[in-house]
């Protein structure tokens, strides 16, 4: 490797903005950093939600047949039932309380653990503009860039993941 450091590198593209999809990038990034990897995450499209100062992430059973519903709810609310108003809020609340009970870190916690471990966050400038976000909406300590900036790091990486 011809880079400035001999560390292994991991590059991640985070494109999803739901509570369930928020976990994989932050769990892998924080763990890789603990193992000595240099890590960058490129947040684009709905992935930008993960960088909001107060992320309001939700999980939805809608269009998600793999989601286990508690109390046999899938029998009472098949397919169309998952579109009932309030279902998303209820599933999000249930998921959050279950996560807390099982000792799973919150997204905010994992996000700051990554920053402490020098994981670099890049917000896709193009989607920031597209969604009319301003840097005040997003957390501090992130960089803004484009595909070329990400590829400069990713091209030299040992692991590259699209999520």
């Amino acid at each position: 490797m011809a880079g400035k450091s001999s560390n292994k590198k991991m590059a991640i593209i985070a494109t999803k903005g739901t509570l369930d999809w928020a976990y994989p990038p932050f769990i892998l990034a924080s763990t890789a950093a603990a193992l000595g990897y240099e890590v960058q995450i490129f947040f684009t499209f709905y992935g930008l939600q993960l960088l909001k100062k107060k992320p309001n992430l939700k999980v939805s059973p809608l269009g998600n047949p793999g989601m286990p519903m508690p109390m046999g709810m899938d029998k009472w609310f098949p397919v169309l039932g998952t579109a009932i108003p309030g279902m998303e809020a209820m599933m999000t609340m249930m998921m959050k309380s279950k996560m807390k009970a099982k000792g799973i870190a919150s997204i905010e916690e994992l996000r700051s653990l990554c920053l402490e471990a020098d994981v670099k966050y890049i917000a896709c400038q193009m989607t920031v503009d597209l969604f009319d976000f301003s840097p005040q909406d997003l957390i501090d300590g992130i960089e803004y860039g484009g595909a070329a900036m990400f590829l400069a790091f990713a091209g030299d990486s040992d692991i590259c993941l699209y999520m």
Partner: protein
Amino acid sequence: MADQELDARGLNCPLPILRAKKALNGMGSGQTLKIIATDPGSVKDFQAFAKQTGNPLLESNEANGEYVFVLKKA
């Protein structure tokens, strides 16, 4: 007797590893860190952590649903 102890009971992946890494950062070479965890996944995770960071895993035991690991800082 380990030089330092970390209570990771009730924490789930990846928190036990992250807390252990943080504790090791503040320790000197040759010192040992004892970790007590309840996450069954931590058994394989600490093996992998030791292998990839070069900090040897001196002990890995299970008793009464608790997992005890001893890492030595390289």
